[in-house]
């Protein structure tokens, strides 16, 4: 073959490979952006949904002083906690047979009107198409949209309550942060201790044995951690602490700490070992002891890598789903102590998305939770990026 032709062929191949890499890069970026767009589009739909279930209305007697009801008030009424009498369509079916309601339920609105007229304290929850029209005694309560404030400031998460679901995201958000915070507080000293031992103190043989073992921990499926937590950790905590219930935030934090450890140790250890040998030797040559070298020289030199390891560990804890779902008890309450059950955002999405009707308010609320989680992890990884970019050497001008 002529050298010219060969060069040409090589060039063609290079161009082709470049195009392929560019294409795969672009496609990946576009797909990720589209997924994020989809997430926010579905989530934003929540604030266009009505507070009362789709296709239904609340009716009261015209003389009733009730003007407007908040979801919390509606829930109280339908839990029989007020003087008002809740009325559902099922109550009508208990009183009348299908025949009495006529073909295609033509007589249903009339009967409903009678019921409302009879009892001025009634609050009826009925499909909008069967609301009795033209009756002077019946008034339909105006529906309002789900508000930002009620979503982000609400303290009750009851997504399947009828007639009006309660979407208060606060207990879930705080639950997630609460569990992750304590997970990282537990993992931090342990992880840093293990890192210092592995990179500075352990012999080569020990290190060769321990490092893969720790990395292996990262490969265990999270559902196995969850099962271990439920069967071993939860009863253990309950017995030793004399707790009424073992599924607590503490159990979740401990499991998450174990799960975050391999990430922290691996990344931090790499950072410490990458400290230039010259630095270490210079320190020792100046007469510093091994310990002084570690905490005066090696540690500051690798502080950005260590911080990145911690932030990555937090990210792992915040997004973890399965293990937390199994051990924290999933009670949507505002976290007040470590020994109470909590519910986290990932666990909520995993547990509820299966049966939430597509396009409904519940479905959109779960997507909104996904958006919140996305923003938290975005914040965390940006922080990791900034921290690891800030190098010790740049600062000291070495």
């Amino acid at each position, binding site marked *: 073959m002529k050298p010219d032709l060969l060069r040409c062929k090589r060039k063609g191949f290079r161009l082709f490979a470049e195009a392929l890499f560019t294409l795969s890069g672009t496609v990946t970026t576009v797909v990720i952006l589209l997924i994020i767009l989809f997430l926010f589009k579905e989530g934003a739909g929540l604030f266009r949904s009505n507070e009362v279930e789709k*296709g239904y209305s609340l009716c009261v007697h015209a003389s009733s002083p009730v003007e407007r009801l908040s979801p919390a008030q509606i*829930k109280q009424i*339908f*839990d*029989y906690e007020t003087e008002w009498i809740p009325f*559902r*369509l*099922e109550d009508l079916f208990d009183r009348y047979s299908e025949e009495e309601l006529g073909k*295609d339920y033509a007589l249903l609105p009339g009967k409903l009107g009678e019921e409302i007229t009879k009892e001025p304290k009634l609050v009826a929850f009925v*499909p909008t*198409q069967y609301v009795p029209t033209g009756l002077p005694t019946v008034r339909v309560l105006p529906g309002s949209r789900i508000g930002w404030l009620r979503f982000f400031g609400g303290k*009750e998460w*009851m*997504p*399947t*309550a*009828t007639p009006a679901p309660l979407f208060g995201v606060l*207990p879930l958000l705080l639950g997630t942060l609460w569990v992750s915070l304590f997970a990282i507080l537990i993992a931090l000293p342990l992880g840093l201790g293990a890192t210092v031992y592995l990179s500075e103190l352990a012999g080569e043989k020990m290190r060769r044995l321990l490092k893969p073992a720790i990395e292996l921990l990262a490969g265990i499926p999270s559902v196995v951690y969850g099962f271990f937590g*439920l*069967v071993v950790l*939860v*009863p253990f905590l*309950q017995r030793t602490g004399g707790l*009424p*219930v*073992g*599924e607590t935030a503490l159990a979740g934090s401990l499991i998450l700490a174990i799960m975050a450890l391999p990430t922290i140790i691996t990344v931090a250890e790499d950072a410490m070992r990458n400290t230039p040998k010259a630095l270490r030797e210079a320190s020792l040559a100046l007469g510093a002891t091994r310990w002084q070298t570690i905490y005066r020289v090696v540690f500051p030199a690798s502080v950005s890598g260590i911080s990145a390891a911690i932030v990555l560990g937090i990210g792992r804890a915040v997004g973890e789903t399965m293990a937390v*779902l*199994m051990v924290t*008890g*999933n*009670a*949507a*309450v505002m976290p007040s102590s470590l020994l109470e*059950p909590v*519910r986290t955002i990932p666990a909520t999405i*995993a*547990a*509820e*998305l*299966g*049966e*939430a*009707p597509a396009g409904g308010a519940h479905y959109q609320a779960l997507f909104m939770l996904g958006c919140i989680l996305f923003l938290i992890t975005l914040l965390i990884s940006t922080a990791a990026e900034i921290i690891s970019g800030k190098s010790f050497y740049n600062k000291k001008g070495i």
Partner: protein
Amino acid sequence: MKQFVFLTLIGVLCVTAVQAQKVKGSDTVLPLSQKEAERYMKTHPSATVTVTGGGSGVGISALIEGTTDIAQSSRKIKFDEKQKIRAGAQTVEEIIIAYDALAVVVHPRNPVQELTREQLEGIFTGKITNWKEVGGSDLKIIPYSRETSSGTYEFFKESVLKNRNYKNGILSMPATGAIVQSVSQTRGAIGYIGLAYLNREVKALRVSYDGGGTFTAPSVANAKNGTYPIVRPLYFYYITRSEKAVRPFIDYVLSPAGQQIVHETGFIAL
């Protein structure tokens, strides 16, 4: 030769098109209909029945959209779902294929033996918080519920709580197995599970629906003779027009052989 292959292919396609049926819906009913379909296909080699889960609501909406032939459901079809079918000028047929009883379970060392429906309602809505209020020892009550996606959660709310909401922040477990596990290791716990999941690690309570008149223990026999109150039917739904296609399989499920499978999978035969 080519023509022959082509013709047999068309023939095979026609036969499967006639015989293939899709069943979709409730995860509670899933193990039962899977087994039914397996045995049915063994005895009727020309038929294909595909069974998938996803939840009762998913199954019924698939039936409305026409993407499944039979919807399996652990709850009765809702009023607005029926309306949607009616809007498409169709009617839906309902077949009860089996029953499922829910047992209320506590820790084996809990001295309480029986509760009324009203007491259960109080416990799960958060009005009753200590076992001594219902005749037990001085111990906090820890009620365990299922996740909101479960049909069991809905049925318990409807039957026992009379549509009132569960207490705010009730512990909710992702699976029935997790409830058994948690109740067996928590002294003050109470939970509800399908009869098939009942084992020695938890204690089933006797329940009364007449304000304390008679208490009945959950068992297959009591559920069958109607004395145990927390029993729900399991349904198959199909569009009346497709009766001819789906009837052979449903008839098999209702036959003695089919009902034997119901018994084997831990549900209550008709």
